[in-house]
């Protein structure tokens, strides 16, 4: 009887996760198909508004700086929101240390891939 419950629970959880994952995958595919969007801004939900390409290189540099700023702000926000759930948000660590720590936290605290990328971006710039 107990095993039946486990099997049903397992099936229910997995079915829900599968549907969610498929939906998310579709969203990601649609987002990443936008070729005009620079690579860092492919992060769903954290995507700064993509600006049209400017003919001048100065404008392009400004666009890149704006995207970088937006990513950093979003990364800091995710950092405070996710890390602060369990402990005091730590000070910045060197990039390679942070890359390991964030992978550890991805497993331990089940941080999403998107949050992981944004936090890593923020912590390593």
């Amino acid at each position, binding site marked *: 009887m107990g095993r039946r*419950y486990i099997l049903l629970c*397992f099936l229910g959880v*997995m079915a829900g996760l599968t549907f969610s994952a498929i939906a998310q995958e579709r969203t990601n595919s649609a987002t990443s198909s936008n070729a005009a969007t620079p690579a860092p801004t492919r992060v769903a939900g954290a995507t700064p508004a993509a600006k049209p390409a400017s003919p001048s290189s100065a404008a392009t540099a400004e666009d890149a700086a704006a995207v970088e700023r937006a990513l950093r702000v979003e990364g800091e926000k995710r950092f405070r929101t996710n890390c602060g*759930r369990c402990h005091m948000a730590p000070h910045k660590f060197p*990039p*390679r240390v942070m*890359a*390991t720590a964030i*992978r550890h936290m991805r497993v331990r605290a089940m941080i999403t891939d998107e949050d992981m*990328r944004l936090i890593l971006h923020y912590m390593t710039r």
Partner: protein
Amino acid sequence: MRRFTNGTRRHYACSMVLALTLSTFLAFRSDAQSPQSEDVKPVPLFTGSAGFVTSFDGGEAHLGPIASPVLLIPLNKRWLLETRATFESDMVQEPGLSGFHGKVAKAVDYAQLDFVANPYLTVTVGRFLTPFGIFNERLYPVWIRNLQTDPLILPIGIGPSNASTGAMLRGGFKAHPQFDINYAVYFSALSTASPADSDRLAGGRAGIFVPHVRLEIGGSFQHLLQQERSNSFGFHAIWQPPAWPLDIRAEYAHSQRGSGYWVESAYRLSQLAFFHNEMRRVQLVARMQRFIAGILASDSLPAVNTKKFEFGLNYYFIDGLKGIGSYGRQFSADGNKNVWTLGLTYRFVLPLGHAGSE
């Protein structure tokens, strides 16, 4: 022709379901993660925490040195080998002897290999912290916990020595623009090899995190596949109101060996206008908890119904170094008592290689 028994059929069905589910998840593009997340090559880390906590439990003094080293070894782009051991002692004054005496207890908390299969799934094998509730897996280290005493219900659902030995599927992903979902399902085999013992059990935990309001709620379920073959379940919640430096955490757990809850709030005095540099380092903590004894006895749980109220003050000297102090009053049929704690905790991080960007 071979005839299947009911048990064999069930196992076969379970295996099929697991295989199908795994293949469904693994079928997602393995490059679904942006390569930018791996721009920086991770370095092996030697990290962990250490602490020295003195407690006065019902008038008896205890000295509690503890060290929990953690070794993190990233392998390739998707693998992580992680292990944590704990060395601790509970030193007390013994009659006829001077000073404090105690044995050092050693435990392998976890020694696991993680494979990040895709953005939705991480496969873990080895010895892992049992994901039942949140305290054991996420709040246990001394540098993280707000109060150094364990919640009364902590032993429910986590097995002996707080860990399981087997396999686990887990992950967290954005299911909706407004919320994330996280999950863990696991199976643990029986192990009697101390200090890596574990029960034979299966279970899962799922949670929803709403980043906008910083609220996480979830539930855990577990079925013991040995002894009384009972079910355990629990719920957890974490809320950090965005406008205030306040943490509210709560857990409820139920099993045949007992049930109960704890609710904890911690407030940083960073919003006070005076002595701001000092006050922002101060955290006030309060926790109330209740345990109701179950129909089966347990060595690790209280034998009778128990209530406990605790108040604490933490001072963060620097990032990773924390001074702690707390007072608690416990009420139970075995007698009421006061519990005081005073101590220091420290978190360290040492890269085992060049730590800068490549």
